[in-house]
């Protein structure tokens, strides 16, 4: 089966905040927020990008929808190159790829009623026939009563705003939906509602999801496959169940061990990670995780590990678990 989305060796660079200062101090003038990332998404499935702050997962997602330019590699959607397209040529693809942003309230235009927000995808793509009926149907799809169309964003709760954002993303029945931290900032009791909603819609419309999250507990339940990112690279990729059962990269293991269990009798295992994520301006040598890794070997400092593949499970580590 051909994948719906393939990301092939994609690199994304940003200019360093102060270029003059960078030049004076001899620091690099660019940071690589995403450095040579490859993965493929199967249609109808949910794929998760996991990583901590600064891992480049949000940047990568934004590059896929064309909000951020790429500097290398290739992104293909449905077998067609979509990286490096002009805004005009991208517009057609944008019917097929929708994005749900992190901040439920912030992603809704504050001066527009829910009605206008939901009408926007149709108006933009010139499908204004029966728009009123479509809006009501969308609200119904996400479990909101029709009178919510008259509300302004500030009159919605966090969960309701999230539902409206989901409704807008699904308005044109896109093939791919990218959800950036869909549960971040929501209470546990509402997290479940949003996840259920996304799953229902996937079952109903066969939508493919690319989910960005730092919450491993959520990822374990919803994703079919996942990739773990560190400093803009994928360090481990594979079947979600396989990775949770037997993580190979030391960073993945550390991440899993840091996932505190809500169980008083379950004491967290030994911490397998030290310190903090280094700055992208000063990438460590060799394996970029080595300064924080308690299992690091001499070779880790000098040589970047090669990617190994083991039954569809990829990882780059000199001393895998």
């Amino acid at each position, binding site marked *: 089966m051909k994948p719906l989305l393939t990301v092939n060796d994609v690199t994304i660079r940003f200019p360093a905040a102060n270029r003059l200062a960078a030049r004076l101090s001899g620091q690099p003038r660019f940071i690589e927020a995403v450095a040579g990332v490859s993965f493929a998404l199967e249609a109808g499935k949910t794929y998760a990008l996991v990583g*901590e*702050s600064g891992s480049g997962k949000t940047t990568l997602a934004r590059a896929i929808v064309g909000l951020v330019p790429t500097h290398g590699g290739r992104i293909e959607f449905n077998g067609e190159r979509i990286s490096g397209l002009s805004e005009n040529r991208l517009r057609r693809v944008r019917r097929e790829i929708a994005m749900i942003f992190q901040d439920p309230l912030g992603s809704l235009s504050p001066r527009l009623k829910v009605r206008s927000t939901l009408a926007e995808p149709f108006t933009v793509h010139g499908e204004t026939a029966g728009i009123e009926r479509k809006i009501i149907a969308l609200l119904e799809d996400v479990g909101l009563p029709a009178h919510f169309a008259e509300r302004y964003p500030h009159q919605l*709760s*966090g969960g309701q705003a999230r539902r409206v954002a989901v409704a807008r993303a699904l308005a044109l029945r896109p093939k791919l939906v990218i959800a950036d931290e869909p549960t971040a900032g929501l*209470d*546990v*009791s*509402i*997290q*479940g*509602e949003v*996840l*259920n909603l996304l*799953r229902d819609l996937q079952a109903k419309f066969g939508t493919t999801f690319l989910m960005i999250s*730092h*919450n*491993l*507990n*959520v990822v*374990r*339940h919803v994703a079919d496959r996942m990739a773990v990112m560190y400093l803009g690279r994928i360090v481990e990729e594979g079947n979600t*169940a396989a990775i949770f059962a037997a993580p190979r990269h030391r960073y993945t293991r*550390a*991440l899993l*061990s*840091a*996932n*505190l*269990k*809500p*169980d*008083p*009798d*379950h*004491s*967290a295992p030994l*911490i397998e*990670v*030290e310190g*903090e*994520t280094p700055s992208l301006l000063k990438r460590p040598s060799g394996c970029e995780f080595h300064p924080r890794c308690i299992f690091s070997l001499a070779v880790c400092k000098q040589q970047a590990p090669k990617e190994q593949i083991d039954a569809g499970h990829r990882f780059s580590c000199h001393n895998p678990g």
Partner: protein
Amino acid sequence: MAEPEGLLDIDNLSVSFRTPRGDLQALRNVSLKMGKGEIVGVIGESGCGKSTLINSIIGLLPANTCALSGHIRFAGEDIVGMADRDLRRLRGERITTIFQDPMTALNPVLSIGTQMTAIQYRRNSSPREKQRRTVEFLEKVRMPDAEKRLGQYPHQFSGGMRQRICIAMALLTEPDLLIADEPTTALDATLEVQVIRLLRELQRDIGCSVLFISHHLGAVAELCERVAIMYAGEVVEQGSVRDIFRDPRHPYTRKLLECDPGRILELRAVMPTIGGDLPDLVHIPKGCIFRERCPDRFERCSERPPVETIRAGHRAACHKARELANP
């Protein structure tokens, strides 16, 4: 010497704020006791009154507070109604606080050395002694090159380091009570574990009590001995962490635990949820505060539920508290 082991005794505390829509009853009849050297967690979702609870204890309620009743006895003295001067004597000396966001909690134009020395103004020690103590505590929170970094400013530290500085500041005066307001929420998971471990080590070292406020059940289970569950301005259940996590008696606690994906061991397609919304705290409904969203509600829930004692130290405010045992 009435209660030698008691440090903090919050008794029937109620707080209301004036808003344009009417008086918002942020806390209602909250009672919570803490012993010396104890680590108590407070769990609650947004809008449950956690911040109001903290602000009441440190006497920094906002200007629109319109009603404050009950008692907060700290080492025998009542904080409610205490004069500002006396309150300030407690704050930063016997009660210290760590706030949620380390990125904004430190003054950007003062070096960390200055800020940490400034809070020792009550001590009669020499400047050199104060600096020595500052370095000692920065080393305790594992700040590398502590002495060299005294002259640096907050923006020169990472988020995790800033939170360590905040912890060092909070423990510098060897307080009796440390209030930690979601200290790990803004941090990455790998840092969260480090900070929690650090907090527990230092707490053992110094012997203070810790009031740990969080919405992260895992963090509470890892760190605390006792826990109180708050919902919409009330403490609905409290007890030892083991009792609450193993045998929750209030339907809200049960639901909350059920919803946490970290507790759901087998994979499932449909995630559990608590339906409905928080009640309006300006127009409080009669009876049980959780009634509208409760799966176990029955007629008697329109009356205010009594606080039932399940076992020593385990109390739940529910009519069915005795019946709702785990199988």
